[in-house]
């Protein structure tokens, strides 16, 4: 410090260097990227950061947006949920970004929600989640339960004739809410309580022998049994290993997972998993030309020809294009104007369909069920005939089925159709 004061020229030089930078910054539109680059979630979220950087890069090559270049502002919330809120505030208040792409776990989204609503920011959230939420300031480009969990159950019920169900999850908000919805749905479909077994294990659970033996016993009652897995993170690896070890094949008791995709499988030996199922809105193995082009661009950008693509990456692709289209339509990056322009916009997804943004801030998505192949990719065995509109508030939960989200006519994310009341923002 003292040396700086002795040489005022250093200050001048610093100022001279900073000025063109400042002038340049005025000509760019800032795009915030809020994904963990360290900690437990880094494995999944780093890929999404790179996806946004690639999309920004491509948009700039096309000449930018509204005649300006896009500039990505990357921050690292380090898989630390309170830090997510802090970094969000930094992006919105200090960096004044026009839009933020970010978050993975539901708990991180719940953590930043109050910040986005207070500062009137705009967040694109790319991961499948438990629903029961619709914020004015968040666009949910991942699947709601009716775009992933419910169709998967329908497939197992109709095509595989499953009669007995094990709902196996990690102990936190997403599996608990999803399983509550699924249990209500199964009971509505006439499945008896004794044919449903629900169990939760902690994050990072490794000793699966007793649980897998229990599943085996539950499945030996003479009725076709399936496991709906909302197990998250690295607990999946010992779980599937133990299934293989106890000789439970996908032909006897299939496991359909909602959190296991190409990225997760690329880290382990997929052979014991062959035939187990996953439900997503996108698979890398899809043959659509748009997907082929996207994979090529991704490999060129990341410079690793073996890297996989996955469902949340497609969600960011859809979200980014929606935002670009809305900004072009509004001729402004002002959050209010963009939010007004967004509902009803349509952009192509990567599997040859159209993603349309609905008034409840969710998008329409096709649903695919894939079987794991030995190379860690998926063979699609079933898909919905068209796209499914995302439903923020599940129709199968008491207290939730009367609630509607509509940011166009009702201007409310939590409108009770019975009491005709809007409870305002929904975060807890």
């Amino acid at each position: 410090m003292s040396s700086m004061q002795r040489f005022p020229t250093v200050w001048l030089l610093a100022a001279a260097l900073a000025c063109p930078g400042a002038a340049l910054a005025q000509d760019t539109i800032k795009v915030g990227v809020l994904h963990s680059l360290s900690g437990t979630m880094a494995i999944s979220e780093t890929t999404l950061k790179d996806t946004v950087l690639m999309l920004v890069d491509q948009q700039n090559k096309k000449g930018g947006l509204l005649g300006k270049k896009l500039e990505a502002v990357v921050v690292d919330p380090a898989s630390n949920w309170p830090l997510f809120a802090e970094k969000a505030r930094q992006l919105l208040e200090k960096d004044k970004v026009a839009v933020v792409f970010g978050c993975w776990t539901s708990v991180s989204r719940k953590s930043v929600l109050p910040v986005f609503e207070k500062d009137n920011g705009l967040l694109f959230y790319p991961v499948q989640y438990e629903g029961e939420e619709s914020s004015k300031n968040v666009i949910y480009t991942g699947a709601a339960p009716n775009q992933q969990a419910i169709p998967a159950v329908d497939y197992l019920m109709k095509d595989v004739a499953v009669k007995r169900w094990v709902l196996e999850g990690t102990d936190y908000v997403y599996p608990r809410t999803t399983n509550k919805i699924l249990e209500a749905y199964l009971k509505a479909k006439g499945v008896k309580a004794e044919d449903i077994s629900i169990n939760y294990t902690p994050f990072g659970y490794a000793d699966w022998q007793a649980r897998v033996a229990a599943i085996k016993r539950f499945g030996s009652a003479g009725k076709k049994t399936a496991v709906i897995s909302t197990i998250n993170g690295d607990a999946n690896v010992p779980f599937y290993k133990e299934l293989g070890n106890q000789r439970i094949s996908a032909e006897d008791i299939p496991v359909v997972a909602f959190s296991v995709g190409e990225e997760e499988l690329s880290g382990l030996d997929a052979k014991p998993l062959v035939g187990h199922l996953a439900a997503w809105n996108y698979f890398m193995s899809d043959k659509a030309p748009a997907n082929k082009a996207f994979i090529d661009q991704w490999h060129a950008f990341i410079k690793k020809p073996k890297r996989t693509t996955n469902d949340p990456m497609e969600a960011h692709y859809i979200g980014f294009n929606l935002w670009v289209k809305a900004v072009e339509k509004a001729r402004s990056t002002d959050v209010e104007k963009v939010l007004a322009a967004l509902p009803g916009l349509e952009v192509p997804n990567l599997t040859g369909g159209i993603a349309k943004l609905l008034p409840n801030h969710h998008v329409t998505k096709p649903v695919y069920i894939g079987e794991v192949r030995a190379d860690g990719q998926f063979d699609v065995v079933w898909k919905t005939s068209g796209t499914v509109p995302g439903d923020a508030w599940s129709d199968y939960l008491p207290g939730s089925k009367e609630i509607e989200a509509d940011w166009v006519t009702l201007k409310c994310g939590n409108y009770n159709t019975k009491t005709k009341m809007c409870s305002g923002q929904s975060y807890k």
Partner: protein
Amino acid sequence: MLGELGEASFVEKEAIVERLSARGDPSIRPLLSALLEDRLIVRQSDQRVFIVKSADDSLASLELIDPVSLAGAGSASRDDLTRIGTNNRLRKRLRALVARFDLSNPDAAVRLAAVQEILRSLDAESLELLRSRSAVEPNAGVKAEIEIGMGLASLDSGDSRARLAAIAALTRTLSPQVRNRLAALVEPTADGGFAEPDELVRQAAARAVRAIDRWRAFYGVVETLFFGLSVGSVLVLVAVGLAITFGVMGVINMAHGELMMLGAYTTYVMQLAMPNHIGVSILLAVPAAFLVAGATGVILERTIIRFLYGRPLETLLATFGVSLVLQQLVRSLFSANNRSVETPAWMSGTLQMNGALSITVNRLCIIAFTLVVFAILLIVLKRTRLGLDIRAVSQNRAMAQAMGIRTGWVDAMTFGLGSGIAGIAGVALSQFTNVGPNLGQSYIIDSFMVVVFGGVGNLWGTLVGGLSMGVVHQLLEPYAGAVLAKILVLVALIVFIQRWPRGLFPQTGRAAESQT
């Protein structure tokens, strides 16, 4: 017909497979098993179907076999070949079809597996095959398995005496298929009647179901005990190293978990070094992990811990710092992501004891391994010069020094021994948990619990304590759930320590007096 396989949907493929196998010609078997094992491919250039010898994707070029004549058909590059995919339904069907051909296989084990496969989806056609095989089958085990199939079929016979005989024969089998089939006989149907018209037969079936259920419940308890012992032996394995560093030396080593992690990473490195001999690498990893973790322990003792003897709080903080350093070290060396350690073939799979009880081989190996490690440690402590020195120093340091024992050297060796055993525990852990930088953290609390519970300074206490904690945990888990079971064990332990502060096997005599 084969050419269509390339473009066909799963349903069409199934139809093609059915048509191919309808003729019962055994020459179709290689084709079916190739399709089952992902070894059936289409050559892009001319859309012809071939079998490849290996489904290994890492090979650039693959040898082709003609699916009809089974003669070699040259080789082709990987890029020109497309695998013909299968789904669960198709694979299940293929397995059943292949099993029919395997009924006449010269190997009795293959025939047994084939019969078991056929029993899973019994129909009139396969029953006929079983019946004709039964007449010529020389092997008693295979014949007994076929009898089950016959028995199941006789349950549908019109003669109630035949049905009774079938039930009597089936009572001895414990497999869930038989149990469910018998239970279905006595279950009232939707219209209030029964699937089985004869009252007498129904009573016999109900009796048989009860008998089977009793046996299954018994084997269920046996299975839980086995699980408990296997969980317990893991606890013993992770705690026994600590029983030496903490129990004998009194050092609170918070880096004990990280020494296990080093052992697990050593296993991973050994597998990387010899990718084609996974089965051998795991055996070599045991001494390697002992050396790596043991050397780390000796360095740790010589550079940090020896300056802190008699100051438990500082030792705790310093070793906690060391644990963070070691974690960051593997993060920098191997990245923060988990590494996948393969389980060798001889350690995977299950031993099917009977229809109700199967025991996983890897758990059996761990139990045996723990007992071996424990026995060796006991011999080292009781029967070697080093063991004598260790015991002498721990009982009366000043006297040992006066007798000419280099106590500093003994301290380093003792700590090295405890750390090396932690490394060996890491090899075992790598077989069923994720190998990552945080591996040690999840086991450090458990290991301290076991040592304190068993009685500080007593190896037998660690063994009994670890095994009993494992069994209690497994008995509780089905009722309480994974999280609550752990809490209950912890609470029970706290209450126990309140009442008996010195654990299960308290040390007695002068040594114990001098420590307090």
